[in-house]
């Protein structure tokens, strides 16, 4: 019986392993396309994590935007530039070692901190306040986060216009 109670625990570990596996593959692959796939895997893994944590809407949002739109954007970018590019096999240059040390140390510090702080006892509060998760998110979003919401549209517009100008073909309308 208890086996199923902590099914989410097992689920979490599987997903965590999947994510870390994909992340490590991202580092170890040579061909750029494989790396794009690896990152797609990581994104889907994270979506699963969010769903596990009860954040349905954010999970699907992650799935839709990250795993959907951004990975496609990355693939298009890879296709448009030299997609045969393959990085040479990993060799430990000075810079690599240094950055590795930095990353490992940072990880160590963070993990140590996480391990040693006593996290608050898990309280049985219902995050969604009674209704389903998307509704809760909607209410929060439109009642007390209105300004950031409007800024999001502004951010999108600016991002889009900028990206369009940068990526547009120079040929037909104006010289470079």
């Amino acid at each position, binding site marked *: 019986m208890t086996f199923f109670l902590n099914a989410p625990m097992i689920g979490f570990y599987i997903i965590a392993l999947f994510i870390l596996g994909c992340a490590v593959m991202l580092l170890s692959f040579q061909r750029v*396309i494989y790396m794009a796939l690896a990152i*797609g895997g990581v994104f889907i893994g994270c979506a699963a994590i969010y769903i596990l944590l009860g954040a349905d809407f954010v999970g699907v949002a992650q799935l839709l935007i990250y*795993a*959907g739109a951004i990975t*496609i954007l990355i*693939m298009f970018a890879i*296709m448009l530039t030299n997609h045969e590019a393959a990085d040479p096999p990993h060799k430990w240059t000075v810079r690599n070692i240094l950055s590795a040390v930095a990353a490992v140390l940072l990880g160590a510090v963070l993990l140590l901190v996480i391990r040693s702080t006593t996290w608050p006892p898990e309280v049985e509060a219902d995050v969604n306040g009674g209704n389903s998760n*998307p*509704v809760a998110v909607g209410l929060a979003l439109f009642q007390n986060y209105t300004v950031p919401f409007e800024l999001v549209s502004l951010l999108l517009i600016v991002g889009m216009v900028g990206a369009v100008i940068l990526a547009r073909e120079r040929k037909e309308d104006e010289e470079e």
Partner: protein
Amino acid sequence: MWHWEANPLNGPAVLGMVIGGVVILILTLLVVMYSIYWQRKLIGWIQWRIGPNRVGPFGLLQTAADVIKLLIKEDVVPEKADRAMFLLAPIIAFVPAFTVLAAIPFSAHHVFTANISIGALFYVALSAITIHGVMLGAWASNNKYSLIGGMRSAAQLISYEIPLGLSIVGVVLMAGSINLNDIVEAQAKSGLWYVIPQILGFIVFMIASTAELSRTPFDLPEAESELVAGYHTEYSGFRFAFFMLTEYVYLFAMAGLFATLYLGGWSGPLLPGWLWFAIKAFLYISFQFWLQATMPRMRVDQLMSFSWKVLLPLALVNIVITAVVKAFV
């Protein structure tokens, strides 16, 4: 209303789920097979010919024979292709196609559906992942035609996903919940199928869904006459079958979504829930085949700009109208 969520998670519940899953898998394969058969029959009839009638009674086993042929046929991995990705692409294409079905409410008691709070959005999100499979397949076969075809079909799929998502927003606005079961219940309760109030959304949905399935006017990617066979030029044998399988599973899924969103899913007088669902799905599928028999193919640039210049504005207008109407009603 019986939900998986209602009862606690224990041994038999999980077993029930597994059986449900397998049943859905088999059901899907059958539906796919017979929708292919029905497609060839219907189009045949339209074109004054009788369609497959040799294999099995009235040609019923025709698709089965095809599948078996594909199984037996040798599939070749081209030498220059990137072997690993070439093998992986069809799987990446197929998996989301199948998982989408989990969210679609086939019948009243949800033995075979996951009553997840974000049904419609789940569908849209997962259909974006198939595009990866298509692009990887195109890239892996390292053939000029397939790469252009792949990129072009990916561009088409992403262009038409936006109007699809926006038209669903209209329905969600009316129903007040993204959960597909709630939508069906809302339509059952109000007794009004959303196809009538959401007529504009419905039109956008139909066109966008046809484009998503890359069928008929929008079947550019594998337009035989132009780029030979689009992104799956190099695929052959059963691996090619999977791309076709993906396409038809999506057809079934889209039919399911269509039925749920606009024709009130399993709700309907007299007949049992699942039968209503079947009829509505069958309606959608037949319409697709009928469309395929009649319509010529759109040109690629018209096709691409059609989505952004016509469908997207229409969908936005639909949302605004629904919102305004709903605010006052």
